[in-house]
């Protein structure tokens, strides 16, 4: 299996060599199909509003107090050079084309590794895609979809009906980011917009493309056109495709596809998906995912609007450490056999998490697994009075077995404080529900709910740095206990980023900075980026990753002082901003049972009973 941690790009693009044209599927079908794909996928668009205007990043001089020796010197000046913005570092890898400069009539394939390998057949595919695009230019789609139209209104019931969208309509094409999931047999499994049925031919084309490239012993990874990036991810029997006009990097988009894959795994487990498709190649997985589309929809909205996914870190609610400790102790005391995680959430942010001892020694809880859990809670919140008991797999913890999640709100009818208890025992509902009563009781005695209600995220003004508008700070393993859970801290987005549009714009800027920092071809440690309406500085060291946003008038010297001050402030507030020492409890008489290695008694529950339905 390929390795694909989402932050580390591997930087291969379309690598295609000499696939025999006559196989699977016939070329003329492919051609026809590709033009179909093109019609759907590559609307002609009016020039995109490039938000980044100028960007210089040069070796940096570090905030004096924190200079790790390996950092470079910052002596950049803002240069207004839009064309060159992606090429500012003196570059040795000229083959790393950037999107901007290669938007040529033939579709501008950006492809870090493709240059050497690309040959006739590769060009064929790309040309087909490009042709499809050209054919379409007469259609005249106006503007590009505003990201906030999609991410900002996720609650609106009107948008719940994305599934009914007319897939031939312009509005469908204009969505900023399409996500498709299909099986290797080309059967549609999920589409973010429009029904899978209506898109089955489009998905068929995608699969044709994938297997076409595969037939030449290659893997298709991405296709670039003028306005779109198409990213492919194959995981076992599933193929995930993202068609995005968001200008995100291929690595970021692939990371997002991976989240989609993990969410599917969290519902079905990897083992049962493999088994299902071993049994029946053209199984319609929608049978099993029916009703889960909203969970995937919700995930994609979160991915677009919540930087936790980009940073692969958890955002916890700032809380006085004494209060957090007392909550942890409450959770620590309310245990039962086979309980492995107790998680308390308020306002969709983590308050505290307590883990079973052997589990914590064995492994750490991956942020992605927590993100999936939080998304599940968000998606199941409609009928909040009940106590939910559902199987769930934590794909990074163990992709092949289920946990059983108990979900209950502690403050009905407001339903902002949520308790999540995970057990390895399918039958443990009543015992786990009993833990909730104990927790409720203890929280009542300590008046915890009203204290939690007062907790809130903080304003950047509390840092006391005038030009600083926003930041995201993600420490690495400092102190050692952070290793338990990767976290980041970030203030509320306030004016001028209070509207959904502006929030998304700032997030896009962060995504851009992130892609530069984590560029597979040329990773950077420090970027000073002067944009039109703000100045951003991103900095990664061995101790942390930091993204800051300043007013446009800030000087470099100011920014550096500000960051020094910010780091000092964070240090001071550390206990409140982060979960410092994730507590533990011990619930397993037989420790190996619940740990990652001990799959013995869980394996038989992996199929959760539905394999018999095949």
């Amino acid at each position: 299996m390929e390795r694909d941690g989402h932050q580390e790009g591997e930087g291969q693009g379309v690598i295609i060599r000499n696939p025999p044209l006559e196989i699977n599927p016939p070329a003329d079908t492919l051609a026809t199909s590709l033009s179909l794909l093109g019609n759907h996928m590559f609307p002609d668009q009016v020039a995109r509003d490039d938000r980044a205007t100028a960007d210089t990043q040069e070796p940096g001089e570090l905030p004096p107090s924190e200079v790790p020796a390996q950092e470079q010197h910052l002596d950049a000046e803002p240069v207004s050079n839009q064309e060159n913005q992606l090429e500012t570092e003196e570059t040795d890898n000229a083959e790393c084309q950037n999107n901007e400069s290669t938007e040529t009539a033939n579709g501008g394939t950006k492809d870090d590794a493709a240059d050497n390998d690309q040959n006739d057949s590769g060009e064929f595919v790309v040309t087909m895609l490009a042709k499809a695009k050209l054919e379409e230019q007469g259609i005249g789609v106006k503007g590009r979809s505003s990201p906030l139209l999609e991410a900002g209104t996720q609650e609106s019931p009107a948008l719940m009906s994305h599934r009914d969208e007319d897939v031939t309509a312009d509005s469908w094409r204009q969505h900023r980011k399409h996500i498709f999931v299909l099986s290797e047999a080309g059967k549609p499994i999920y589409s973010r917009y429009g029904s899978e049925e209506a898109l089955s031919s489009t998905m068929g084309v995608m699969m044709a493309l994938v297997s076409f490239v595969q037939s030449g012993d290659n893997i298709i990874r991405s296709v670039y056109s003028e306005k779109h990036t198409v990213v492919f991810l194959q995981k076992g029997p599933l193929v995930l495709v993202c068609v995005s006009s968001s200008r995100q990097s291929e690595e970021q988009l692939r990371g997002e596809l991976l989240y989609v894959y993990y969410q599917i795994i969290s519902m079905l487990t990897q083992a049962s998906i493999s088994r299902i498709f071993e049994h029946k190649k053209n199984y319609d997985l929608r049978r099993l995912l029916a009703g889960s589309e909203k969970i995937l929809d919700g995930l994609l909205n979160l991915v677009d609007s919540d930087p936790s996914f980009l940073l692969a870190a958890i955002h916890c609610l700032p809380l006085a450490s004494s209060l957090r400790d007392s909550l942890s102790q409450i959770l620590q005391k309310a245990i039962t056999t086979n309980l492995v995680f107790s998680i308390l959430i308020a306002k969709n942010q983590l308050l505290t998490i307590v883990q079973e001892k052997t589990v914590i020694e064995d492994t750490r809880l991956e942020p992605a697994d927590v993100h999936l859990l939080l998304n599940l809670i968000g998606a199941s919140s409609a009928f909040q009075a009940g106590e939910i008991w559902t199987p769930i797999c934590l794909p990074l913890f163990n992709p092949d077995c289920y946990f059983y999640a108990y979900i209950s709100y502690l403050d009905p009818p407001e339903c902002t404080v949520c308790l999540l208890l995970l057990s390895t025992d399918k039958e443990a509902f009543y015992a786990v529900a009993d833990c909730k009563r104990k927790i409720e009781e203890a929280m009542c005695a300590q008046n915890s709910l009203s204290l939690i209600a007062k907790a809130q995220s903080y304003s950047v003004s509390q840092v006391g740095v005038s030009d600083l508008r926003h930041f995201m700070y993600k420490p690495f393993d400092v102190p050692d206990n952070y290793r338990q859970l990767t976290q980041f801290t970030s203030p509320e987005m306030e004016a001028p980023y209070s509207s959904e549009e502006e929030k998304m714009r700032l997030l896009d800027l962060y995504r851009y900075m992130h892609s530069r920092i984590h560029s597979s071809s040329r990773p950077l440690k420090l970027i000073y980026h002067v944009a039109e309406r703000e100045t951003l500085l991103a900095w990664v060291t061995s101790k942390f990753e930091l993204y800051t946003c300043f007013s446009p008038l800030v000087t470099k010297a100011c920014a550096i002082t500000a960051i020094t001050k910010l780091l000092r402030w964070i240090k001071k507030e550390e206990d409140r901003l982060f979960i410092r020492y994730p507590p533990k409890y011990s619930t397993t008489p037989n420790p190996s049972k619940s740990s990652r290695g001990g799959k013995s008694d869980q394996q038989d529950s992996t199929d959760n009973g539905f394999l018999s339905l095949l």
Partner: protein
Amino acid sequence: MPEASKMKKPDVKLVLLGDMNVGKTSLLHRYTDRKFKDTVSTVGGAFFLKQWGPYNISIWDTAGREQFHGLGSMYCRGASAVILTYDVTNWQSLAELEERFLSLTDTASHDCIFAIVGNKVDLTDPKAQLSQDSSGVSEDQTEHEEERTEPQVLSSCPTPPASPASLSGITVHKQVAHEDAMALYGRILRYKGLEEKSSLPAERMCFETSAKTGYNVDALFETLFDLVLPSILRKRNENQQCPTIDLEECRGASSKRARFCC
């Protein structure tokens, strides 16, 4: 003891089964909250405690998705009543009851009673639209108290609409006739090996409801509550001898017993 700790001890267990989207969550929501609002597809199963007179009734609302079938028998374990729900506008949803859901009830209590409920009858039957006010159904209407006084047609089989002109204007084709549900009821009794004569009659156990208007919803739940009363009393009696309620009847280990005492 603080309020939160006042344990309500469930006396009896009811389970809602049926394909997704037939309206199980909506029915429960209508009954407990007197509202009809947008639901999100249920994940796994959701447990509710309903106070009914001096009794505490636990109700499991299940997802109905194949994905969660592995837990179906767990949700049904020891149940005193199973509500098999279908959508009157969808024939397949009735067929699924027999094909997929009936076998999940094998873990139910030996004297479990079965109700078959055809929901969304507001779409096909003007009578079921009566309690709807003229403004149509708003997301959050709470003022449906009047529907409780509406004469409940408990045992009569609703006849097809005499006139297609319904209050909302549109009626959808009714794919499942009441007789079909009653026939299924007979087959369920046979599956369970029960005598038709000694069991509750189909006319009494087959309901047509609308979670949207509230039509027949209270009647459904209250009929069932009445019917499980003997079971409640028997359980309470048993518990005089044994002070803990064992909701996990199949598990022997006493340490595993849920402690539902204060």
